[in-house]
């Protein structure tokens, strides 16, 4: 009994400490987005709304953020489309080299980012492709692809093949079977894969740094400006992204719990 009392006290303390540890940098970033900083955003100088109302004042921060969004969206779309097709092919069709492809797909995930980034940069160099938006998008698509394939593959494998057969039996052509049955059933997996891709792409620094040339994404902008002190506007953007993510998660939780309750009520 003694041990359990000890455990009962210890667990909440441990949890609170862990949460604090995780939250402190975020809270710090959030608070300092309101700092009336002059040159550096390290010491508290006083409260202001100015950083939030004039986000784009800091040199290059909005452009870098815009680049990150473009790269994230394009790479996510490309990786999700390609990865979904590949995942279906890997589960459903028996072709020569299927096992090798399944294995190779893991490679970008297992390779250290530095190696992947440097390797890609060397490839682009030898192909003569100028570094910039395009090379970053290609690089991001590549590493997101692995994650999409792995995520969607699990979903495809769990699909009951007889459901699609029922579709064929009920006069649906192969295209109709895909769009009316297979695809809707895969949506949860595809959406999860797309979210993951976007988060990975938005977050990526190492591979981007090797392949972006003079173009800056949000992470590379922060890295470079960190030398002089990150402008408070960057804190604003980081805080805003965090708040948006929290709001998004909350909404989806509420919606799904309402739907569950409605389902239960209709029984």
């Amino acid at each position, binding site marked *: 009994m003694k041990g359990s009392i000890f455990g009962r006290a210890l667990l909440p303390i441990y949890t609170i400490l862990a949460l604090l540890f995780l939250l402190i940098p975020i809270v710090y970033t959030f608070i300092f987005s309101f700092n009336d900083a002059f040159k550096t955003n390290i010491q508290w100088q006083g409260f202001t709304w100015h950083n939030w109302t004039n986000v784009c004042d800091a040199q290059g921060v909005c452009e870098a953020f815009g680049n990150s969004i473009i790269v994230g969206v394009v790479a996510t779309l490309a990786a999700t489309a390609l990865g979904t097709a590949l995942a279906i092919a890997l589960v459903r069709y028996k072709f020569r080299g299927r096992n090798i492809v399944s294995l190779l797909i893991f490679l970008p995930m297992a390779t250290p980012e530095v190696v992947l980034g440097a390797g890609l940069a060397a490839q682009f160099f030898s192909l003569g492709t100028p570094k910039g938006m395009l090379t970053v998008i290609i690089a991001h698509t590549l590493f997101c692809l692995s994650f999409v394939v792995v995520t969607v593959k699990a979903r495809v494998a769990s699909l*009951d093949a*007889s*459901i699609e*057969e*029922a*579709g*064929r*039996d*009920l*006069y*649906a*052509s*192969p295209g*109709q*079977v895909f769009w009316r*049955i297979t695809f*809707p*059933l895969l949506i949860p997996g595809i959406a999860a894969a797309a979210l993951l891709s976007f988060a990975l792409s938005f977050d990526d620094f190492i591979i981007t740094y090797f392949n972006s040339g003079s173009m800056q994404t949000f992470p590379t902008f922060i890295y470079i400006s960190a030398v002089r002190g990150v402008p408070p506007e960057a804190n604003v953007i980081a805080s805003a992204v965090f708040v948006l993510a929290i709001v998004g998660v909350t909404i989806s939780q509420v919606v799904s719990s309402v739907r569950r309750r409605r*389902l239960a009520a*209709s*029984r």
Partner: protein
Amino acid sequence: MAEVSLSSSGTELTLQGIRKEFPGFVAVDNLDLTIRAGEFFALLGPSGCGKTTTLRMIAGLEDPSAGKILLGGVDITDTKAYKRPVNTVFQSYALFPHLTIFENVAFGLRRRKVSNAKELALAALDLVQLAHVADRRPAQLSGGQQQRVALARAIVNRPALLLLDEPLGALDLKLRREMQVELKKIQADVGLTFLHVTHDQEEAMTMADTVAVMNNGHIEQMGAPESMYDLPETAFVADFLGQSNVFRGMASSANASTIEVAIPGGTTLRVPVARASAHSGDVSVGVRPEKMSIHAGAVAPQTDTNVISGGRVTDVSFTGVSSQYSIDFGPLGNVVVFEQNLKALPTVDLGDVVSVSWKVERGFGLRDHRAAVIDEASEL
């Protein structure tokens, strides 16, 4: 697809030498079968004998390794599943989990752009008594309800041929009987051709015009339910459709009308030539338990009656209208007799030494002894 229309009548199905091999395994072996237009055809057989595989080949979900499938005289062996005017009630239901019950049922009609899809789908849901759950998802229904949705989803299309893979397996007895009547009515009203797979021999016998008994990938025997029951050709069929007593023997002599079969113990049994599927060599004599009589002591044999003596009663169960006796005949094995309690109550008791008899014209001659499956099981 547009050429597929709601059928106003069923179509004839012919299977010619259909065979299906899976790696290292033959699931269906050289199957020949004709189902007449508008017929209710029941396929019976033990688990794993190839019933579902046969249906899947007819539906176009599995390619036969050899053979041809003709529907209404047209070769559809290479026709894609979605272009065949055939629908299936899947053994596993296979409902679309992301669609409502109504959308599930309307799916086939919508794909064929049937104009009054909505009314037809609602009518089909009414038929299976599920109109009140039209807006739910499959996961919110019980197993029996899902099974009825699967039925409605297939029937609503009025296919030229409906394949039913144990469509009533998950229903309780009362609902099962109701759905049987309902199915039979739809089949008769629209004149659809039904190919109905079932484990339930009573269901097959009461509903079907023709019954086929399948075993190990081939059809053992097929025919009208009454004649299959009255005159099985193999021990497997004799055992699978109802109960029977089978005595293994050798044909000792035969004339134009009767075969004499010597069985172990020195007894000779007679069976009419017309009721035997083998006339020389190994012939087994079978008889249904309700066609036999039981007598205390020994009885003198007569030309029109087979008699076996010297059995010991090992079990008597009284079921009201009839009594069931189990009698041990030593090397001949166990014999089961049903006797109706017409006049007096049971005449013999446990442990009594008795004889059994039956009219020669009630027995049947089988070309084999016991089905391999059953043999293995009894030797264990």
